[in-house]
């Protein structure tokens, strides 16, 4: 998708003023945060398992080439094919080729963030193939012609009434003319419409949460069952995934699965965890005739050995955004690209360049809640800080801010001058403040602050002054 990350500030303003979005974000906060807390408290070994999962993923990343080769070998041994793709364009062309090989006119799709990353849908459409999103959230935003705003709940930014309007507008052609308002009825209508499409589609495309080196299996974790119907009723199952998803053994994936669902939705297990291995066997009564795994790098391998390598531990649970006060204030679209929230702030600059995406690591208070809930203990604030350093070095960002940092650095290296400057500032602010009731309603250079809050005035003397004066 086309990045709008440079537009963060304007988008944030719009998002804060959007009552529908704010209502939807309120639902998100109360739902997921409480559910994760309950799930974490409900498993005595949860913290120990997080530690195991972190160690495991570090081991995998250090030996990634071995495990990917082993995965490919097991896929091939069971009748499937692995397509390694270095770039998004390579992945798109590979998938298009696979669709054409199968004479595809329509493809059903399970939810995949990697497919979003390579902007697969518009590409397929431009080539005369109709992609049909089957995850309910993805289906909703496909009707709305919007990108996902959350990595596990693509339509979390929509209210029930907005979904109702969308269905009413788009479902008339299926003879569904009644306006539905209850979630149960809306879900049911989508179910009825999509049911036939699973059977009619030529190719089924899903993502993968994990790739198992031991068995050559790809794994999807879902609650709806759409990813399963998508892959079992078509002539070919195409998996689009990325190289960081490989896990050595079934025992290892068990550990990660235990922390994944708890962190994501607060479930112990999502309803469906499905291992897919190769195409249908000769004697099978159903299943896809072909099995293709398209494995995307898209610059991920460039992160290895860098100060941002830990991003590759991410298992895409979404806990960081569910707990992020910035995400919960502005929603996912404000981030302007595929991955929103803290993970996006730490990852998107790698894909888009820091010039385009510098606002994303910038727009964080470093409150650290994302790192606290990340099942993989990714030091997200630290990685964002590295991006800020990169931005500063590359002279990206607003000039006054960069000058401000330089001026501060100048003073900070000269303690006497620093003390003098703060003493003068405190005196002036203190004197001015005492005649204004102890606070300022506007201040030069700080209009951002005073637009929505007062600035409490200092008392007039610095700590250093008072200490020197013997006030202890």
């Amino acid at each position, binding site marked *: 998708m086309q990045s709008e990350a440079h537009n963060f500030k304007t988008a944030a303003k719009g998002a804060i003023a959007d009552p529908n979005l704010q209502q*939807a974000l309120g*639902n*998100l906060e109360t*739902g997921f945060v409480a559910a994760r807390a309950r799930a974490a408290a409900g498993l005595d*070994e949860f913290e120990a*398992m997080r530690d*195991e999962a972190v160690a495991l993923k*570090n081991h995998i990343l*250090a*030996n*990634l*080439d*071995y*495990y990917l080769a*082993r995965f490919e070998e097991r896929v091939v*041994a*069971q009748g499937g094919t692995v397509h390694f793709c*270095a770039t998004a364009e390579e992945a798109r062309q590979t998938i298009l080729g696979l669709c054409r090989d199968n004479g595809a006119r329509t493809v059903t799709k399970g939810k995949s963030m990697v497919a979003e990353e390579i902007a697969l849908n518009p590409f397929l459409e431009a080539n005369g193939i109709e992609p049909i999103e089957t995850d309910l959230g993805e289906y*909703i935003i496909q009707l709305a012609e919007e990108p996902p705003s959350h990595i596990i709940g693509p339509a979390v930014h929509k209210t*029930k009434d907005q*979904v109702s309007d969308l269905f009413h507008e788009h479902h008339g052609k299926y003879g569904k003319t009644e306006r539905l308002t209850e*979630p149960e009825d*809306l*879900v*049911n209508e989508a*179910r009825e419409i999509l049911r036939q499409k699973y059977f009619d589609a030529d190719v089924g495309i899903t993502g993968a949460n994990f790739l198992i080196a031991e*068995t050559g299996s790809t794994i999807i974790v879902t*609650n*709806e*069952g*759409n990813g399963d119907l998508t892959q*079992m009723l078509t002539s070919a199952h195409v998996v689009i995934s990325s*190289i960081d998803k490989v896990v*050595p*053994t*079934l*025992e*290892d994936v*068990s*550990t990660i699965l235990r922390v994944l669902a708890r962190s994501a939705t607060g479930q*112990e*297990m*999502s*309803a*469906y*965890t499905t*291992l*897919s*291995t190769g*195409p*249908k*066997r000769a004697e*099978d*009564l*159903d*299943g896809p005739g072909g099995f293709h795994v398209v494995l995307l*790098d898209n610059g991920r*391998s460039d992160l*290895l*050995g860098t100060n941002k390598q830990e991003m590759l531990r991410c298992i895409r649970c979404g806990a960081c955004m569910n707990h992020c006060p910035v995400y919960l204030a502005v929603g996912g679209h404000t981030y302007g690209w595929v991955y929103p929230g803290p993970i996006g702030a730490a990852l998107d600059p790698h894909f888009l360049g820091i010039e385009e995406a510098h606002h994303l690591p910038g727009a964080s208070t470093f409150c650290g809640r994302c790192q606290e809930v990340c099942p993989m203990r990714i030091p997200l604030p630290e990685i964002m800080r590295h991006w800020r350093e990169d931005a500063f070095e590359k002279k990206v960002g607003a000039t006054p801010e960069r000058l401000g940092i330089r001026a501060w650095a100048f003073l900070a290296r000269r303690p006497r001058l620093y003390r003098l400057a703060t003493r003068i500032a405190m005196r002036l602010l203190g004197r001015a403040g005492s005649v204004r009731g102890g606070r300022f309603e506007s201040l030069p250079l700080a209009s951002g602050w005073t637009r929505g809050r007062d600035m409490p005035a200092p008392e007039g003397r610095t700590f250093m002054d008072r200490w020197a004066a013997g006030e202890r």
Partner: protein
Amino acid sequence: MLTKIGNANRDNPLRRPAEELADRIANPKQNLIPARAGGPEPERYALFLAKCRELAVTIDEIASDDAAPAAIADYLKGLNLPGRLKLSPSPEVTDLPWDTAPLLDVASGAAEISDQTGVTPAFAGIAETGTLVFVSGKETPPTLNFVPDNHIVVMRRSQVVRAMEDAFAAARERFGAGVMPRTLNLVSGPSRTGDVEQKIVMGAHGPRRLHIVMIDDVDNAAKQGD
């Protein structure tokens, strides 16, 4: 691409020789498994039932195979559902005495769009999370686990294992090391979605209902302790 990755990792202290990694896969070791799953048979089974119920799975415990068709007929009648069933073409299901429930109309095979109720065996049940395990094969088409609105699972109490790891070990035993059937499903409750305002609605795309007919094949001695 793999060479590039290898080069980027050259100095990583966690890098291990290929033989060691091959051995790690050939002799997989278990990581931490929640202690709650590790009790003796009666506790393990009770945990399985409790976890299933938390997930809105219904369970009918019966004493023997012979009682299964009547139990299924009662279940459908209770919900006012028609008696047409599509069975997995597996003797575990097709060999049940269906003639004892004359109101049921049974066929077997893969699922079709018109099938409302599927009856399948299970490969295992996982006590830790109330999860059912299904493997695909000529006798067990996985479409039956997903297409019909109602999924009825006929299984035996002795199939309930402790954790995922036990089910995976059993799969390794059955299919061989490094080999899997086309599909292995871990199913934890009926299909659901929270995509409209985080409100959980059952029956998104897969089954609206998941019902277990549990045949008690565990002798009393085992129930006294494992």
